[in-house]
């Protein structure tokens, strides 16, 4: 399905689809508005023309407008490091088109259409991932894209023969479209991981026979937080009909009992971050803007609004990581798991079972703590005192994407272990606190628990004797990333 960019209705989910290859077009109305915007331009030299001396030193007067643009774009191609994945370059290009489609930047429709051509034809430039401070926009990464769009680097003939004017050269790079695009893809992934984590937590609760008080609707409503109320409702949904989770089981450890409180923070942070990102995606992130026939200079390129939101969601996502890891710890811990064998395997000793999965989760959770360091609290003066406060938003966005990979694997591990624990319960395998086998009634899974368990078993076998763990972890991580665990399939 095609995504139509009109400068006002781009959602994070759309950016994610565009990243994964959805076709795109510029809305006809937006094209008309862009034309009208250009026509409203006051006569006289453009803003970039006026600034040419500042931009290219003593040569200003000698340069043709075309040379000026080329010098300007090439001079901004100062990115370094590993290239961004093509998916994220696509997302960035689409986000920039949408900014131009706000019809406030003084750009002709062709400036947007050239990027649309490239997206639809799979002409995706190589963009180094590092080098943007996210103020005056993501200058370097966007310049690497603009270099191809403007024909200053190899551009296939099938892409329209676009040549920018001075204002367009500026508008193609002067905003935090990469940060916003990475953030948009990030929140889609975060939501998918959160959805899986709620289901995984429900499986863990079923496996350890958790007390149901902690998900009581009245209890959660009494504390007002919508995130906690939502997590409680969704856990109740998964556990409907459970014979294991009931009010008479008493109070569990915090990683279970306080799940609505801990995981609820991410529900709220996610909707907040998504809202902020969508404002940016549909905002005029450029400078100067052409409004009511008047050039207005401001700071609409500065990444602060989204940088801080991206750092905030990293904190909430770290909560999800650490609380899932503690549930994994309990599942592997014979004396804490209410009768499950140590490391969830029969014949422990010769078998280490799932011992190492919890190390992996712990290592990843610790990585999250490091990645949670807020990038946006830093700022370094740049460009001769002129750009003296910057956002560091792109660093926050890249760290969010790195973190969500860690958390997908952490949640995958909980899914893997909870499924194994449910198998053991269904087989009536139980051990006392000293590891001695004891009698236990095989349990009957709640209907939706059965559904989740079945999806795991379709990909990962029950662990009888020690084999190679890695393929199980990889498959579990994929179940979370593709959404297959929850009965969906979508690219990550």
């Amino acid at each position: 399905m095609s995504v139509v960019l009109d400068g006002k209705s781009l959602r994070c989910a759309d950016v994610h689809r565009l990243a994964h290859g959805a076709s795109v077009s510029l809305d006809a109305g937006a094209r008309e508005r862009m034309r009208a915007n250009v026509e409203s331009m006051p006569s006289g030299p453009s803003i970039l023309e006026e600034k040419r001396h500042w931009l290219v030193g003593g040569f200003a007067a000698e340069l043709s407008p075309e040379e000026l643009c080329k010098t300007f774009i090439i001079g901004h191609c100062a990115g370094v490091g590993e290239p961004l994945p093509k998916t994220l370059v696509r997302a960035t290009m689409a986000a920039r088109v949408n900014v131009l489609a706000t019809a406030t930047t003084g750009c002709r429709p062709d400036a947007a259409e050239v990027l649309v051509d490239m997206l639809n034809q799979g002409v995706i430039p190589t963009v180094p991932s590092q080098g943007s401070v996210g103020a005056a926009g993501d200058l370097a990464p966007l310049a690497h894209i603009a270099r191809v769009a403007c024909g200053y680097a190899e551009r296939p003939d099938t892409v329209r023969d676009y040549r920018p004017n001075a204002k367009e050269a500026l508008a193609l790079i002067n905003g935090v479209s990469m940060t916003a695009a990475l953030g948009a893809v990030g929140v889609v992934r975060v939501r998918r991981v959160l959805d899986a984590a709620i289901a995984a937590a429900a499986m863990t609760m079923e496996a350890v026979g958790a007390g149901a008080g902690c998900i009581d609707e009245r209890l959660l409503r009494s504390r007002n937080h919508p995130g906690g109320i939502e997590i409680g409702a969704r856990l109740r949904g998964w556990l409907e009909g459970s014979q294991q989770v009931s009010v008479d089981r008493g109070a569990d450890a915090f990683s279970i009992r306080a799940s609505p409180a801990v995981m609820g923070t991410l529900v709220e942070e996610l909707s907040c971050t998504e809202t902020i990102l969508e404002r940016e995606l549909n905002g005029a992130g450029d400078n100067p803007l052409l409004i009511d026939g008047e050039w207005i200079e401001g700071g609409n390129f500065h990444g602060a609004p989204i940088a801080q939101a991206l750092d905030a969601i990293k904190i909430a996502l770290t909560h999800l990581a650490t609380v899932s890891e503690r549930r994994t710890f309990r599942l592997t811990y014979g004396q804490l798991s209410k009768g499950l064998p140590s490391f969830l395997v029969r014949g422990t000793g010769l078998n280490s079972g799932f011992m190492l999965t919890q190390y992996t989760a712990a290592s990843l959770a610790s990585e999250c703590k490091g990645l949670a360091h807020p990038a946006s609290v830093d700022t370094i003066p740049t460009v001769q005192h002129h750009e003296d406060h910057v956002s560091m938003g792109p660093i926050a966005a890249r760290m969010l994407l790195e973190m969500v990979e860690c958390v997908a694997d952490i949640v995958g591990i909980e899914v893997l272990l909870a499924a194994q624990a449910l198998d053991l319960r269904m087989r009536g395998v139980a051990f006392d606190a000293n590891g001695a086998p004891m009698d236990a009634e095989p349990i009957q899974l709640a209907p939706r628990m059965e559904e989740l368990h079945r999806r795991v078993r379709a990909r990962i076998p029950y662990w009888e004797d020690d084999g190679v763990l890695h393929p199980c972890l990889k498959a579990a991580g994929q179940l979370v990333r593709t959404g297959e665990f929850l009965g969906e399939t979508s690219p990550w």
Partner: protein
Amino acid sequence: MPKALAIDGSNLTIQDVVDVARNGRTVVLDEDARGRMEASYAWVQQAAQQDQPVYGVNTGFGSLARVKIDPAHSSLLSLNLIRSHAAGVGPILPVAETRAMMLLRANALAKGASGCRPLLVDTLLAMLEADVTPMVPSQGSCGSSGDLAPLAHLGLVLADGDHGRVRVNGVEMSASEGMAQAGIGRLQMEAKDGLAITNGAQLTTAIGALALHDAVSLVEAAELAAAMSIEALRGASRAFVASVHRLRPYPGAIATAGNLRCLLEGSGLIDSMPEKLQDAYSLRCTPQVLGACRDAIQYAVDQISIELNAATDNPLIILDEDGDNKAFSAGMFHGEPVGIPLDVLKIAISEVANLSERRLYRLTTGSLSQRLPAALASKDRPELGMMVPQTTAAALVSENKALGWPASMDSIPTCEDQEDHVAMSTTAARRAARVVNNARRVVAIELLGAVRALQFRTRAEAEASLGLGTAKGLQRASEVLDGLGDCPTPGEQIEALASWIQQGGHRGVVDGLESIA
């Protein structure tokens, strides 16, 4: 390439690690070490048949040490350890880091205290020689009891069976195919082999050793870049006089001040503004800041060098001790001794880059640069000059701050509370390598600026003589840039200089420069 490296568990250096991991130097097992390994192996083989519990030989692992294992199962016990510990996730490690980890594990076993066969080391060395590199996921280790998961992924290749993946000369294939192609036999696991392969922080140390090698070289590049910038900014030399630094005698600061004097000797631009009593900190305090970094890096080098030659197994077999039980369970695998220094390395290298970025800012800021052109833009052709690269440098140093969070400060209890304090040293090492890579590009950007600045000075003032070292640095770096052809982007120029630094092109521009040992 030097002749084959003989490993004996006691003499491995960081340079050896680089030679083997990156440059393919051949490695052999020292004959005395082989003898020591055989003796400790013999002891384990007989202990495996006894009633006396020996951890991991006839017991389970971790908290499962409480479970006794039938001696008949000792081989399966080792194999199961490898298979069930192969719990890594995330991107596959680069080849050089994996090779370094293999070498380090071989050297730890060559110490002769792990009770395993020399064949295990011979197999590792044959894999290094034949360029058979296990596919090891980079994430998932807590660094205690060593880098279990990454080393277990190596073990999947060593141990015979339908498991493990390798790259042979860059081509991915199954371990059985790769080892067969290279004519290397895989091993039937024996008692304690599993522990001998997995118990120790070798991945941490491998990544750390390579990062440290690069860091030591980078400090020298930063000193060269600093000297060139200071010269271009007409700095004052009195801040670097030896007698000044003897009054606050930090070895690193004394070394940096000495190197600056050495590089700048003969410069006519230095002290060319007598009215200027003192320079800004990013120039004047270069010895204090880079010197502190040198001292911190020296600490990390010392720690890593100890770990390179350490037995890290558990239990260790010490035949010289009295009594029948020669197996000593201790915590030699714990990654803390290397985790902390590698976190310190991140701080030190971040500061190398921070200082470099501020000098670059001065070079590119008209009002601060003693009349250099704004943004160092060329007077011969239209360009933006260094305006955007300075922003790139700012982004890189900021990223280092986020990566600088000390991983080794964290710990999460594992293994039913038996392993209730872990090092997180592997994360420290991986982050340190990233910080070094970022910092190298920052210094490359400063060099790019300094080259331009010195070119302006020498063109504007024909009589301006450069320092002995800085002139040579300018010449070499200019050659790198001239080799890029017409109109390279700033990004291409930065990457070219960063590679040049990585290859050590900046080293030895003048005699008498002091390096970190």
